């Protein structure tokens, strides 16, 4: 056998030649000529909903000649938050990531500005609501494109029969399918009376006071309805104000009409409360109704999703958007932007919303009257008012309008529900306020 020994000089020369050939070679378009793109999407809880986004991405990838990989990362056990933290530390990972609520701001310095693509998207789809801007922008920089997948409003989901029977309220007449709400009398006083009546009737409202998001979101909307802010938009402490005192007084009354164990409720508790048929109302996106449709159809056909009661300062509803953000360490930013534009086309949005059974909410004003919300049932039209088609309520997030990095702490530490519980358990109002002020001072550290 003839063996030729490769000398060091020959090896160096061969390497240099092949490198030069590769660099100067004419550009050949292969199947994946436009590079690679990896995406971390939120793993949808609705069976089959992920397929809609996969199909849209694959169709785009084929046309754009980009090799795409998609990971569906669940929010169960905060797996998505852990992945975000890990990728931010490692400065490596996916190119596009679905950032929930506060996480775009929390990683603002590491995200690519997508203002250039947001302009045409908004021009096509309509304006976004204030909460989307609050959570998704720093100055003129857009931290991500609002994603319809996972975005939700946590409004009231009422039992038609129980509300009529115990509180004398016809929620279907108040929020008729296909037409404007007739809810001028649907305010916090009416809400409290209804809560009392349903409590007396043995079917109390299922509103939690634990430390998870569902609990915090409801408290946030009610606080904002009173104009109660712990920290204002400029970052000033505004805990010891009459508005906050009013909100606490209101909550104290409300808690006495809620189930006795609400301090221990998590995000699953209210869903179980509705599905078990033990309560007349919960505050949730239509996921609880969808589960009821599967497990307790007799409950589902009595559910109606509608608007929040109005307070002295307006009608606020909790809105939690997701953003598709591009990490600044992404090596294929242009392809990523191109894909996000495709995902934000009205047809793509409608496809994804329909696949989610109407759970997902587009952030754009022209896309709040899609067919799916009018047709989903039973009862037909139960989701008609879910996307806020008449801009009847102000979509908000708890702890706003504090600067997002402070608000995130107020939100994560559940300061609002803790205040309500402390006061309800007999702590003096001023002591509760002093405690909350101390907490907020701590959240302001930079």
């Amino acid at each position, binding site marked *: 056998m003839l063996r030729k020994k490769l000398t060091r000089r020959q090896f160096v020369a061969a390497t240099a030649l092949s490198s030069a050939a590769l660099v100067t070679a004419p550009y050949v378009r292969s199947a994946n000529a436009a590079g690679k793109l990896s995406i971390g999407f939120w793993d949808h809880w609705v069976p089959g909903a992920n397929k809609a986004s996969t199909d849209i991405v694959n169709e785009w990838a084929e046309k754009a000649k980009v090799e795409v990989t998609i990971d569906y990362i669940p929010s169960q056990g905060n797996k998505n938050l852990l992945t975000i933290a890990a990728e931010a530390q490692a400065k490596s990972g996916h190119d596009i990531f679905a950032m929930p609520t506060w996480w775009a701001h929390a990683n603002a310095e590491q995200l690519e500005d997508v203002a250039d693509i947001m302009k045409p998207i908004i021009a096509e789809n309509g304006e976004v609501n204030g909460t989307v801007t609050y959570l998704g922008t720093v100055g003129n920089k857009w931290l991500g494109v609002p994603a319809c997948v996972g975005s939700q409003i946590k409004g009231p989901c009422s039992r038609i029969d129980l509300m009529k029977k115990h509180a004398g309220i016809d929620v279907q007449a108040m929020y008729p399918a296909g037409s404007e709400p007739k809810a001028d009398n649907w305010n916090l006083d009416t809400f409290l009376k209804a809560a009392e009546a349903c409590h007396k009737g043995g079917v109390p409202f299922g509103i939690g006071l634990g430390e*998870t998001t569902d609990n915090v979101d409801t408290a946030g909307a009610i606080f904002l309805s009173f104009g109660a802010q712990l920290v204002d938009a400029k970052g000033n402490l505004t805990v010891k104000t009459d508005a906050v005192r009013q909100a606490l007084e209101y909550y104290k009354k409300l808690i006495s009409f809620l189930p006795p164990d609400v301090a221990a409720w998590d995000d699953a508790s209210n869903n179980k409360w509705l599905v078990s048929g033990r309560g007349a109302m919960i505050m949730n996106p239509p996921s609880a109704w969808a589960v009821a449709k599967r497990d307790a159809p007799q409950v589902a056909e009595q559910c109606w999703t509608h608007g929040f009661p109005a307070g002295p300062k307006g009608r606020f509803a909790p809105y939690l958007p997701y953003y598709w953000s591009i990490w600044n360490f992404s090596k294929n930013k242009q392809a990523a932007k191109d894909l996000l534009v495709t995902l934000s086309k009205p047809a793509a949005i409608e496809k994804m919303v329909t696949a989610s059974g109407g759970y997902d909410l587009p952030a754009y004003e022209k896309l709040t009257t899609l067919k799916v919300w009018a047709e989903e049932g039973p009862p037909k039209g139960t989701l008609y008012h879910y996307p806020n088609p008449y801009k009847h309520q102000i979509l908000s997030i708890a702890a706003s309008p504090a600067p997002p990095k402070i608000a995130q702490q107020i939100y994560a*530490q559940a300061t609002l529900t803790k205040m309500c*519980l402390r006061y309800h358990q007999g702590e003096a109002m001023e002591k509760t306020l002093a405690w909350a002020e101390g907490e907020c001072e701590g959240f302001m550290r930079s």
Partner: protein
Amino acid sequence: MADVALQPDRVGATQTPRKRSSLQKALKRKSTAAFLMTLPLIILITLLVLYPAFYSLHLATLNKSMQRFVGLGNFEFLFKRDTFWLVVKQSCIFAITAVVFKALIGFIVAHFVHNIPAKGQRKWRGMLLVPWVIPPAMSTLAWLWLFDPSYSAFNYTLSFFGIGPIPWTGDATWARFSVILVNVWYGAPFFMIMYLASLKSVPDQLYEAAAIDGANWWQRIWYVTLPMMRNIIAITTLFSLIVTFANFDIVRILTAGGPLDHTHIFATWAFRIGIEGSDIPLGASVSLFMVPILAVAAIFILRDVNKRGNES
């Protein structure tokens, strides 16, 4: 000198075998072999333990946005927070109470199992180890259903006796009780198996001698069993204290730190601040705070073990 300078080849020829022989000698040394055999583990520990430990030390010295060095500023900030001291207090209550009960239950059950005839002992040992071998994240989910605020199986059962409903996870005291109970349930089998192994190594002659001297049951435990088990008890306690202090899954699943932060321990609060609140440096500082507490415990316990080792 001149010879060496004139005959360089010879020098090389004599040095190489000497080098080789010293390498061979080094390789033959027991300590070298031991080092090489433990090298994979050392590399693994360096990568998975030391690097993250030093990295978290580094993180703890940064400001919230991780762009500025703040030295011990995060710790200074924590010392001024009431919630932090609440967490320190709760971590100590949680760990100490749980370890005491685990040790006590483990000791008692180990004696029961030790007294079972050898034929049936294996079955009991296997069954009693079940809580310890199930991943705690899974078993705690079952406990969560048992303690569920609205649909607790315990409350359902107690209602037949006119008791309850008990707010297992909704009231601060009951919530603390619940997380400690689950931790004891999970960890007691570890103590049991360690104590059982230790009991089996106590020579029967000592008990026979004690019996001849007229020692009763309690005196046999106090003067024979306990002194013979002291080192195992100390080491097991230290190990369990470290693991219990660093516990995360049980509290996270059962109460997530609530109600009103009354069940938060270091790991769960660090997660709340660091991951859920996006303040990783402060979260790292909280998690590092258990190091000095555990170091003090380790020094005392290991010093005691060494002292007794030297005495014997």
